[in-house]
């Protein structure tokens, strides 16, 4: 296999009736890489993942997993990956171990194959003490880990995770991501195969931009297409020098005044401060005049400065309507309620 590409999809398309859910999507994921799939609801993330695992059949295009064609070598291709769907379902009245056994047998593993690795996996995800507990009695975070353990039972070289951290508290998200990072680095050795060629690959969809920023590469989807794909730092560089951070009070005056400035494109709350996106080359002008404008209407400015853009700034920019029009011209759907 060339360059250790573990997932390769070319020109994937899938329509549901009139809606083009996935529109000519190509992507390649390397060994040891964490690839993040982001985009608005209904942009096509889940459908893309389902096409990659063969849960849905593409109208056109090819998927290759670890060198096996998903269409022609279905069983071999499928044995290479683990998949955690958005609504991972487990049998609540079965124990942790019984659930894993079920998923292992569905994947065609015999007990002399899955049983020895099972303990190892349970230890890795931190559930070894709970293997006889009924799944229905696990906390939300532990259920999450059981889902991951079930996806790992085939020792996959590729993991596909569809919004595994949606509706999950920050502590559980922390634990989950530490496991993902371990899996893709050498410390996860033994849990999965493919280490000799550079580690497990992960493709993960997420609504959390802080999670996206720890992926090696991020693909931004809109109306069924990947409209941008790059490393988080290259993506952030697209708005370098154009994001100002404003702190002061009251927020509504700050927001209103910033919006009224002709060189300000967008104003968004980031926690207790505002991020102001300005036109190319306009930062100095805005820095210069905005504070006095704010004071003029009775507001207080504690700090105004140029900051490094974060991925959420990029997400907001890519989601803005003028870009929606562009993708509409390319044949995507536009505005209004999107179909999922």
């Amino acid at each position, binding site marked *: 296999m060339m360059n250790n590409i573990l997932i390769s999809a070319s020109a994937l398309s899938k329509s549901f009736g009139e809606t083009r859910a996935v529109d000519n999507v190509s992507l390649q994921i390397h060994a040891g890489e964490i690839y993040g799939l982001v*985009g*608005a*609801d*209904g*942009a096509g993330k889940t459908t893309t993942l389902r096409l990659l695992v063969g849960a849905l059949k593409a109208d056109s295009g090819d998927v290759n997993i670890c060198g096996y064609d998903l269409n022609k070598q279905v069983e071999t291709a499928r044995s290479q990956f683990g998949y955690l769907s958005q609504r991972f379902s487990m049998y609540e009245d079965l124990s942790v171990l019984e659930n894993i056994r079920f998923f292992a047998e569905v994947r065609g593993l015999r007990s002399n194959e899955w049983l020895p690795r099972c303990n190892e996996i349970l230890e890795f995800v931190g559930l070894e003490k709970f293997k006889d507990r009924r799944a229905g009695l696990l*906390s*939300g*975070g532990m259920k999450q880990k059981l889902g991951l353990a079930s996806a790992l039972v085939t020792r996959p070289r590729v993991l596909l995770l569809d*919004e595994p951290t*949606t*509706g*999950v*508290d*920050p*502590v*559980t*998200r*922390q634990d989950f*991501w*530490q496991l993902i*990072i*371990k899996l893709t*680095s050498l*410390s996860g050795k033994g849990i999965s195969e493919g280490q000799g060629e550079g580690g497990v690959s992960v493709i993960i969809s997420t*609504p*959390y*931009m*802080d999670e996206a*920023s*720890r992926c090696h590469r991020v693909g931004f989807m809109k109306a069924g297409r990947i409209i941008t794909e790059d490393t*988080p*730092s290259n993506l952030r560089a697209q708005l370098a020098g154009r994001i100002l951070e404003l702190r002061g009070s009251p927020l509504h005056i700050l927001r209103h005044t910033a919006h009224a400035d002709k060189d300000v494109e967008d104003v*968004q*709350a*980031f*926690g*207790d401060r505002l991020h102001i996106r300005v036109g190319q080359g306009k930062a100095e002008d805005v820095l210069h005049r905005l504070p006095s404008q704010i004071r003029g209407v009775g507001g207080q400015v504690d700090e105004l400065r140029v900051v490094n853009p*974060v*991925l*959420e700034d990029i*997400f*907001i920019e890519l*989601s803005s309507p003028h870009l929606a029009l562009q993708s509409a011209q390319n044949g995507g759907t536009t505005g*209004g*309620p*999107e*179909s*999922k």
Partner: protein
Amino acid sequence: MSEAVIKVENLTRRFGDFVAVDHINFEVQPGEVVGYLGPNGSGKTTTIRMLLGLLEPSEGEANVLGFDAFKQSEQVRSRVGYMSQKFAIYDDLTVLENLTFYGGVYGINDKARIKRTLELVGLSGHDSTLTQTLSAGWRQRLALGIALVHEPKLLFLDEPTSGVDPTARRAFWDLIYQLAETGVTILVTTHYMDEAEYCERVGIMRDGKLLAMDTPSNLKKNIIPGDVWEVYTEPLQGGLEVLPEVEGVLRVSLAGDHLRTITEKGLKKEVLLEALKAKSVNVRDIIAGEATLEDVFISLAR
């Protein structure tokens, strides 16, 4: 004179041996936006269910808008709105039909009022859209509309933005603030710490106990005792393994593409740098950071 909209004293709920909510006390004033946080299963939803009068407290009292939440639950429910994590919207009805149906449940048959609610949540013009074709963000607006159709004075939102993309989340919070400006009091649970930062006060629950309730800045000041460092290592895993072992390091967590490291006050960044170098972890940068609500949450929830 401002009377508390919610007043909770020693509120407790047991399920068998399990104490889901354990002697909590707090008050919410009119017009406040209060965030209610905690790990899954820490008792947030049970608290809300008691405030709605859906569940009888095992001990203690909950007073909502001047009524006893359980004994006078009818009075409470006609005056509060509730949007739950998994709200039942009829997929085969249109937006307007759903709203009209739920309006009817509250005895609201005034068409103008229903139109006004649609407008308020930004769904005007989508009256006849079939609900099943709505994206998550738009469904959530409809769910909010349903919670608002009887013009409640107090709104309970239980993870309203779960599974919604970042842009739709922002639009949703703009709506919440518009409502708050009209004097509606809001209690909202969320797992998004950036959203919690928008709240005037934030309560954090763990194992049924309310550990703290205060403004985000007071929480950061009082709960995070040390210094915060943003450590950029290559790869992250190296830092994750080495930093927790360094003396004076209180906690290490992932934050975006770097590691947040909370240390005892006054620990020099050189100490971190040396420790990482000694284990040949590549360090790109170490920058002094500020405490966030996520730091507070993780400190309290562990």
